[in-house]
């Protein structure tokens, strides 16, 4: 077997002598220096081979042999070293394998991670949704929303539509439905659900759907189903899973970390779109149970699109957006409505 040339250091000393090391066919390690004859030595540790970085071989008696020669195949007797060495040299086949593994990893994270976090959801009590909802309400109410400018009657009318929907949807859960009517310049005509049962509806939305109680019921049913399906907590769990993965991978490289975090944000948007579809489908069921025509949801969406984007309609949704685009949602609702 070929001999490795290098420097032999005595324990804890900077001084060294030139020497050679090799491994014979029986697996014995030999050492020879300019001042000593060849002798069998016990190897305690061989540093992992990384590129052409000088290798450090620590011997049983504390001696260290540093060599700039690359270790011959089989020198360490460690299978992993061989694998790493093989991976470290570029080859188109390896690039293809890597590409496949990356695709599998991305698909795995997209498909498996939500499954794992949804399985964990079973262990999270409903009370957590309620606490989370209270926290969210505290942090957004007053910041994005101001008190409603609508009359008591108009607000009570919305509540009368909301209450039976919430009671029906939250039966058998720890959630308690509560409707907040608020004014918001930022959100315009909009409604949003908070974990635990609070649904916020804006003055603009109530004004827009004033003449169409069925459509208001449909929008509220959609929000109620977000709560029922625990989308808030599921989002948090998925985010925690993504952050955990990003942490693990990201530590290898700061730029990779940026990518991992950006990817996790994009994936969150993807999850969010799925949640919207789920809420739409849930709302269709709930509306049917309440004896309301579910296509009201489709009409409400059309009215919202018109108000937000004018006659031309809103741009097609992209992979960056948190909601699927309006036509897609309307199509889905129409398909599911009897």
């Amino acid at each position: 077997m070929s001999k490795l040339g290098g420097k032999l250091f005595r324990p804890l000393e900077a001084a060294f002598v030139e020497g050679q090391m090799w491994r014979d066919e029986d697996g014995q390690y030999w050492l020879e220096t300019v001042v000593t004859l060849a002798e069998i030595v016990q190897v305690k540790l061989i540093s992992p081979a990384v590129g052409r970085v000088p290798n450090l071989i620590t011997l049983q008696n504390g001696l260290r042999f540093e060599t700039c020669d690359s270790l011959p195949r089989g020198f360490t007797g460690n299978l992993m070293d061989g694998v790493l060495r093989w991976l470290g040299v570029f080859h188109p086949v390896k690039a293809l394998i890597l590409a496949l593994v990356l695709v599998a990893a991305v698909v795995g994270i997209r498909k498996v991670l939500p499954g794992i976090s949804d399985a964990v959801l079973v262990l999270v009590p409903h009370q957590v949704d309620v606490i989370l909802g209270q926290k969210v309400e505290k942090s957004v109410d007053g910041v994005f929303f101001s008190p409603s400018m609508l009359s008591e009657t108009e607000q009570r009318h919305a509540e009368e539509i909301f209450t039976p929907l919430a009671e029906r949807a939250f039966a058998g859960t720890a959630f308690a439905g509560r409707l907040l009517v608020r004014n918001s310049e930022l959100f315009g005509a909009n409604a949003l659900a908070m974990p635990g049962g609070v649904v916020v509806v804006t003055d603009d939305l109530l004004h827009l759907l004033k003449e169409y109680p069925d459509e208001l019921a449909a929008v509220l049913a959609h929000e109620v189903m977000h709560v029922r399906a625990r989308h808030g907590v599921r989002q948090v769990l998925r985010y925690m899973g993504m952050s955990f993965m990003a942490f693990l991978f990201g530590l290898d490289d700061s730029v990779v970390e940026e990518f991992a975090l950006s990817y996790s944000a994009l994936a969150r948007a993807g999850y969010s779109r799925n949640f919207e579809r789920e809420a739409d489908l849930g709302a269709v069921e709930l509306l049917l149970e309440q004896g309301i025509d579910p296509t009201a949801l489709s009409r409400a969406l059309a009215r919202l699109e018109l108000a937000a984007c004018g006659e031309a309609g809103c741009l097609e949704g992209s992979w960056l957006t948190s909601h699927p685009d309006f036509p897609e949602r309307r199509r889905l609702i129409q398909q599911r409505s009897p």
Partner: protein
Amino acid sequence: MIDDSENEFVPWRFHGKASEYFGIWLSNLLLSIITLGIFSAWAKVRRNRYFLGNTEIAGSVLQYHATGGKILIGRIIAMAILLVYSNIGYYATHLYVIFMLILAVVLPWILDRGMAFRCRVVSWHNIHFRWMGNYRIAMKGMLPLLIAFLPSFLLSVWYSAEIETVMSEMEAPNPSVGYLLAAFVFALCLYPWAARTMAQMVVNHIAWGSLRLKNTVSLQRYALRVLVYLYLGLGLGYGIGVATVTFLLIHDDAVINGPDFLFEWFLPMILFFIVVVIPLYAAFRGMIRDLILNSTHAIDQQNTCEAVYMHARYCWRHLLWIKVSNLILSIVSLSLLVPWAKIRYERYLIGNTATTFTQNLESMVDQQQEHASAMASEYADLDGFDFDPW
């Protein structure tokens, strides 16, 4: 290694090659993915071994001795602490304050043990670097930083607790923002002194054999660098970014009324901060490293004479250009050029560093130390708490 001639000026050399590191980086990434991140601890060892092992000083390279197993255990414990720390404030503000106060007491221990680990796992010429500090020394070094940032921290916690109450009762905004600004200015004023104290504490307690590093940078020079590169440079870049985003969000109706304005704006905003703020920060760190290196020498404690002088010759324009172009190319190439970018940056840093030796170091003998903590070192990495002196 060093011959007997006096005052030998030795430029450092970096032998790393992008093509070679690409394979290492790729295999690290691949195995990290396959093992769901577990291999990343071993990947760190391979990466550090590559960069240190290609750094040649006076004919000998640096060797990295840490093992992946220890780093993994340290990383898991550190991550658990970080998870508690980042989530606790969400549930109870007072618990968060208590946790942070405990952390302030624990941080010097983390610094001390982490430095011991970082020093112990690196050797040059068969002699390991050694950390000479202890908890008391670390606390003394960190105290100015704690003093500088404690008022801002306590006020911001109090302010956010107040804001929640005020908002929920729908009252006028809280007037305490003035105090918060004052505390922030106080922190900015104290930061140069605090950061220099910390940097000197770290450098002055690193030893190699009987050599002990000594830093003599003056407060005026340190403060000037902080003022120019951090406050003016980075502050200006960051300020322009925040102001632009705020302006657009306030004045562009289309953005506000769109249903997904956060997501529509997310990528451009992130890109801006990556391409502008990160390079500016790197330039600042580089110029601080330049200052610290140029004012550091090593004293041989046996002969009580100066044995080594450090030199660096960095230019902020070069640092900035390398970082900006590296980031753009890394993003455009979907991160495939990351290995090339890292090698390029490291080559600049190492290639512009040098040492003057005034004595032969071959008779040096190692003096080993115990009780270093991989967990402390990993926590420091995770939390972005960077205690490299530069």
